[in-house]
């Protein structure tokens, strides 16, 4: 059956769903988008995008190493990302007396870890001969090759992450907006922050498996940053971020299916488009007052 895009949307969708690999890709994409949209919202509010990016990159040596050793690739992603999250959480918090200096110090450490992770990933890829096309998929994503087992893993991890997020959401928001007051009110600011980094690791590991390690931001940052520009209401922001992430994923996967270009490119392009529109809207709205 030749794949081509027609003006009949119903027919196009039926074509899409004719192949099991495409069904798996859509399932995985949807799960990952919901998780990344919700967790990404808090990441953007907390200004931890750099940590999120690093966690995504840490997944790369995890997956490459797992492939090299013949272990499950998903296990490599999740194991490395969660371990990385724990390491970042253990770094000393930004100094109170000198917040800028403290932050710079922490960024420097995170950045160094990030570079080292990339280097290790490259080593593992080199050690595992014959992964040349696999490298591309790891870094930039692919719609073929997501197995049913992987979908189940993503679902379990995603549901668990969202459940934990639902439990810590309120103190997490408090600690994000107003850490000193939250601490005085008995919120375990450090603990909640560490728990969130682990959730971020899970989200980054899951998203990597769909968009590729380098393009995780398309789902983790862009939808959340878009939502934050549209609304300042926390609950509405989370919902909007999830909706945008899902729409962007479906559009990206759908178009990738009919085009010769990779999924990572399309998802990122749509996410970027939404972000630009929201940025323009914000600038106009702010100017009007």
């Amino acid at each position, binding site marked *: 059956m030749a794949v081509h895009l027609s003006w009949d949307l119903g027919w196009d969708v039926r074509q899409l769903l004719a192949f099991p690999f495409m069904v798996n890709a859509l399932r995985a994409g949807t799960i990952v988008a919901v998780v990344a949209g919700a967790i990404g919202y808090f990441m953007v509010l907390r200004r931890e995008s750099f940590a999120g990016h690093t966690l995504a990159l840490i997944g790369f040596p995890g997956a490459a190493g797992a492939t090299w050793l013949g272990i499950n690739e998903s296990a490599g992603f999740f194991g490395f990302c969660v371990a990385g999250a724990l390491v970042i959480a253990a770094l000393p918090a930004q100094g109170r007396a000198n917040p800028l200096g403290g932050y710079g110090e922490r960024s420097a450490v995170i950045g160094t870890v990030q570079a080292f992770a990339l280097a290790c990933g490259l080593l593992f890829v080199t050690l595992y001969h014959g992964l040349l096309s696999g490298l591309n998929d790891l870094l930039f994503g692919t719609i073929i090759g997501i197995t049913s087992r992987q979908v189940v893993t993503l679902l379990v991890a995603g549901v668990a992450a969202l459940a934990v997020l639902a439990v810590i959401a309120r103190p997490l928001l408090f600690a994000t907006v107003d850490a000193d007051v939250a601490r005085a009110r008995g919120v375990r600011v450090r603990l909640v922050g560490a728990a969130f980094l682990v959730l971020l690791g899970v989200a980054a590991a899951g998203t990597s498996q769909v968009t590729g390690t380098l393009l995780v931001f398309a789902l983790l940052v862009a939808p959340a940053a878009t939502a934050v520009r549209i609304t300042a209401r926390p609950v*509405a922001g989370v919902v909007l971020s999830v909706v945008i992430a899902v729409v962007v994923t479906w559009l990206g996967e759908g178009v990738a299916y009919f085009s010769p270009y990779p999924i990572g490119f399309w998802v990122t392009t749509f996410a970027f488009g939404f972000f630009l529109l929201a940025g323009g809207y914000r600038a106009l709205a702010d100017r009007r007052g």
Partner: protein
Amino acid sequence: MSRADVVTARGAAVRRGGRTVWSGVDVTVHAGEFVAVLGPNGVGKSTFLQVVLGLVAPADGEVRVLGGAPGSANRRIGYLPQRHAFDAGTRVRGVDVVRLGWDGDRWGVPLPFGGARAKAARERVDEVVELVGAGDYAHRPIGRLSGGEQQRLLIAQALVRRPDLLLLDEPLDSLDVTNQASVSALIQHVCRSQGVAVLLVAHDVNPILPYLDQVLYLAPTGAIMGPPADVITADTLTMLYGTPIDVLHDRTGRLVVVGQPDTHEHH
């Protein structure tokens, strides 16, 4: 110590970073009083509020807060930390910040719909927002508001749970003169109308001077507490710091303290 005392300290001392910040401090704050905490930079005014909150443990002496150990009754304390400004990128509404003061420490998700509990929370938030006069801008992102507007919303956040004690750390510091006067008047109004005791750390006592019941002047070797007219005098402060200090009065009744030593300049 009477039952109505909100904060008492007897011979209290605090060590931080291996150094004694202050020692021999005696304090009594009665219910509903408006008290200013004064002293040079780095003397330990913010540290004093952190001791009251139980965030820093005294190295010596006894401190009691609302009838218990510090930290045991933080639900009944509203707190506004020092130098607290949201930058323009903070995309959360003023009412959301106030609402966090209501139940932000509880596990779970605050749902926008829901039963009587959510309604009670919403009504209380609206009530304090009106009390501080922030009704016009409380629904805008807090990062886009002026320093004075943010300060009013943070006072509302500190008030939302009907505390018996408000701890305000230099709330007037970043405000222009007009806003200093109006926020001072607001704090006085809140103190009297809600019966809340207020401990307010100030760099400049003048905006709040007419409203104060007591001032607490902190020094490394002790503290003096009493009505402003008795404490802010050349003789008392000279004795407290062991170095010559003058208190000048200008025609409008403003006080200027000259010669107080800065313990530590930081930042």
